[in-house]
């Protein structure tokens, strides 16, 4: 029997968790001698006060939508893909290969090609842990953590070797040819002289990300595969009874998950940097965990949570520019969000359930 109404589960609990995280973050800011209120104002102003700020917010959000969806899809099959980071690294490699070695005639074709390569590389990186989980029962959390490190080393190896620009100091590929450059919001929203989003990295990938949300929503709730995936996530024994192959579901889920994480690379690698640098992912794979937890693994929730984290990232960057609050504050906030919406879920839930139960008893 449900103790709580659904709205409490999907809206109230995350909201309370966020508030708790925000309050603790405010305490941290106070403790280092700054004003939380001023910090918040600065963040809002920097992230949402101009089209420039929005351009960054949406750029970050795009990354987080992809990684958040990646974690969510796996969550639905009760798999914890903590390897989004490594999969996104490999996705970047795919994008770089696609952009550097294929002569694209137009950005739109390059976008499609890069999407495919990014997804394929990300999926491939998820495939090995998935296979080991499905066939050998190796805990996917541990293997994906290991694969994050291996991915970083692999990329490093390539960026100081085969892919490096001779004579360059940086471990980075050459800049991609202009034909692969994606239109940024600045290019797209330029009406009669007034430029919006000037200098911001948000680009056409944002729309790909939103489309991915819709596609994943349809996949999970409207297709047979999604149905099987959710069945498996809720009850492996029932799935077996129904003739749903655990191996297939684990593999397919992780391929989709890894593919999504990989696709993040079209935003940061092709869309923003226009070359592949070493630390391109910058923890977005991990933020996907927070985003998925907060978004309750629902694509729409992921979209909202990704926007919130986009705001935090851009706002945090502004804080770091104009105050003495280090940018690591965002990591603290991210940790608190994961803690409260993920691990301490019951702390918020149990009293609420008791409250609702008491209310129901009182009504009877």
């Amino acid at each position, binding site marked *: *029997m449900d103790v709580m109404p659904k709205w409490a589960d999907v809206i109230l609990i995350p909201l309370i968790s966020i508030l708790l995280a925000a309050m603790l973050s405010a305490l941290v800011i106070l403790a280092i001698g700054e004003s939380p209120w001023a910090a918040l104002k600065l963040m809002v102003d920097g992230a949402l006060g101009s089209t420039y700020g929005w351009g960054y917010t949406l750029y970050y959000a795009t990354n987080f939508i992809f990684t958040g969806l990646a974690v969510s899809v796996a969550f639905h099959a009760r798999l914890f893909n903590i390897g989004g980071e490594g999969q996104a690294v490999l996705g970047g490699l795919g994008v770089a290969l696609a952009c550097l070695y294929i002569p694209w005639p137009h950005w739109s074709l390059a976008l499609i090609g890069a999407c495919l390569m990014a997804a394929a590389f990300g999926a491939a990186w998820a495939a090995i842990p998935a296979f080991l989980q499905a066939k050998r029962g190796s805990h996917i959390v541990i293997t994906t953590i290991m694969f994050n490190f291996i991915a970083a080393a692999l990329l490093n190896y390539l960026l100081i070797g085969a892919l490096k620009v001779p004579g360059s100091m940086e471990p980075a590929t050459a800049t991609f040819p202009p034909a692969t450059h994606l239109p940024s919001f600045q290019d797209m929203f330029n009406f009669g002289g007034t430029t919006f989003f000037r200098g911001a990295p948000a680009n056409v990938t944002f729309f790909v990300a939103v489309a991915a949300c819709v596609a994943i929503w349809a996949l999970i709730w409207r297709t047979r595969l999604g*149905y099987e995936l959710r069945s498996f996530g*809720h009850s492996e024994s*029932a799935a*077996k*009874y*129904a*003739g749903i192959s655990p191996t297939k579901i684990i593999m397919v889920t992780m391929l989709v998950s890894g593919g999504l994480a990989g696709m993040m690379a079209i935003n940061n690698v092709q869309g923003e940097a226009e070359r592949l640098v070493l630390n391109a992912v910058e923890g977005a794979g991990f933020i996907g965990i927070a985003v998925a937890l907060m978004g309750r693994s629902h694509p729409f929730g992921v979209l909202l949570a990704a926007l919130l984290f986009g705001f935090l990232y851009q706002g945090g960057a502004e804080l770091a520019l104009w105050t003495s609050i280090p940018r690591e504050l965002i990591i603290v906030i991210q940790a608190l969000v994961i803690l409260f919406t993920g691990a301490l879920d019951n702390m918020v839930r149990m009293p609420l359930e008791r409250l609702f139960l008491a209310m129901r008893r009182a009504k009877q």
Partner: protein
Amino acid sequence: MTAPAPAIELKGISKAFGPVQANKDISIRVMPGTIHGIIGENGAGKSTLMSILYGFYKADKGEIFIAGKKINITDSQAAIAAGIGMVFQHFKLVENFTVLENIILGAEDSGLLRPSLARARRELQALAEEYELNVDPDAVIEDVGVGMQQRVEILKALYRRADILILDEPTGVLTPAEADHLFRILENLRREGKTIILITHKLREIMDITDTVSVMRRGEMTATVKTAETSPAQLAELMVGRKVLLRVDKTPPVIGRKILEVHDLNVTDDKGVHRVKGVSFDVHAGEILGIAGVAGNGQSELLEVLGGYERATGSVRMNGADIDLTGAHSDGQSRRAHGIAHVPEDRQREGLIMDFEAWENTAFGYHHDARYQRSRLFMDNQAILRDTAEKMARFDVRPPDPRLAAKSFSGGNQQKIVLAREIERNPDLLLIGQPTRGVDIGAIEFIHQQIVALRNQGKAILLVSVELEEILSLSDRIAVMFDGKIMGERMPQDTDEKELGLLMAGMTTAPAGDPFQAVAQNLAYAGGDAVKGT
């Protein structure tokens, strides 16, 4: 001379699990040196009550007196200190520890293990002799059988000097011989002056061994009576709350062609235990083949193989076509394609996804059906919803709300959802396991009618049940399984519970030694469950 204080007295115990009221204001007295039985349907709250006495759960309200003294049982440590020991329905043993380690766990003498182990070894020897409780102290739990595991649990309690021993459905997993042994041990313990509480579903066990008996229904204690002054029929009525008279109206079967042919089927589980040993049988159209047997004798595995989610060797033919038992096409989907429908034994773990809504469960296993598809890519949720609403109406599922989660339905209604899904698919063969486990009387009647109706349509039905009465009243032919083998086949009109009981105990003829004793023992199994089923 005043009467001695009761060994156990519970006053006004209440306990709720969230919205579920498992125990409501329960009071009970048990006199020292007696065996007290507790019976009640699944979910009546028996285990909960005993777990409260043992300090495993905390009661919301109520008082506990042991030997006349009120005590506050906050945790199992307190219960153990008060001389209470409990053998749980699901044993609480550490699988990869030895017997000895399990026994001293929590009852060590000092910070260091060696002296404790040495003392336990000595004491075990004494206990073993005293109560016929032989165990190998150095055996690892996961390597020994359930009978031995149960003895370890009892030894655990005795090692802690328990005067009160609670046993929760101890015979459910035992073979008749093991159960026989257990009851001898219990007799010994009673003779030593221990007080025993025995939870069981089996009326015959109650009648045989207890001194007094309490009946629970829906969280409440409906009666406590002296065993000598009651009858199985009266207990059954107390248990379910109304007169129990249920006969399935059945016309003689019209046997058709062979639908299912099973030949030399063998199943070995992941642990390498040989579960099904060379089983062969046929099921015909228009016939119900009932498979009787004590739980754990290979019936579950048999169903799982036929349902497609357990591997096996041997041959199974369905409508004359060979079925793949090992390869890539051995899964539930392929079985359904062959016209096999399956109502699994455990509806909550297998038959349903408890968090899914009813309509989603209606498509479960059949989600590839053409009528549930909107296009090649997408499922047609509206079609499933409509279909579910119709099925719920036809099967009288209450409440008839397709959008309610499966876990929000009662056991009987959950079973109706599963049954509706499987029967309505018009299969050639219906596999059905424990169709009425945890289901209330009204629903049992309805479910039995559905099964018979399906058979009357000329479908083949393979029924597996531990309820002998259910087997006897539904089946057109009965096979008995014991230790992975089919001990024999009987026609219901040519046999009775006595004979089936013998077969279930692995005996084809009355044993030479003490025939009377063995028959009585087996009766305990054969008759016990019948009441609930009928």
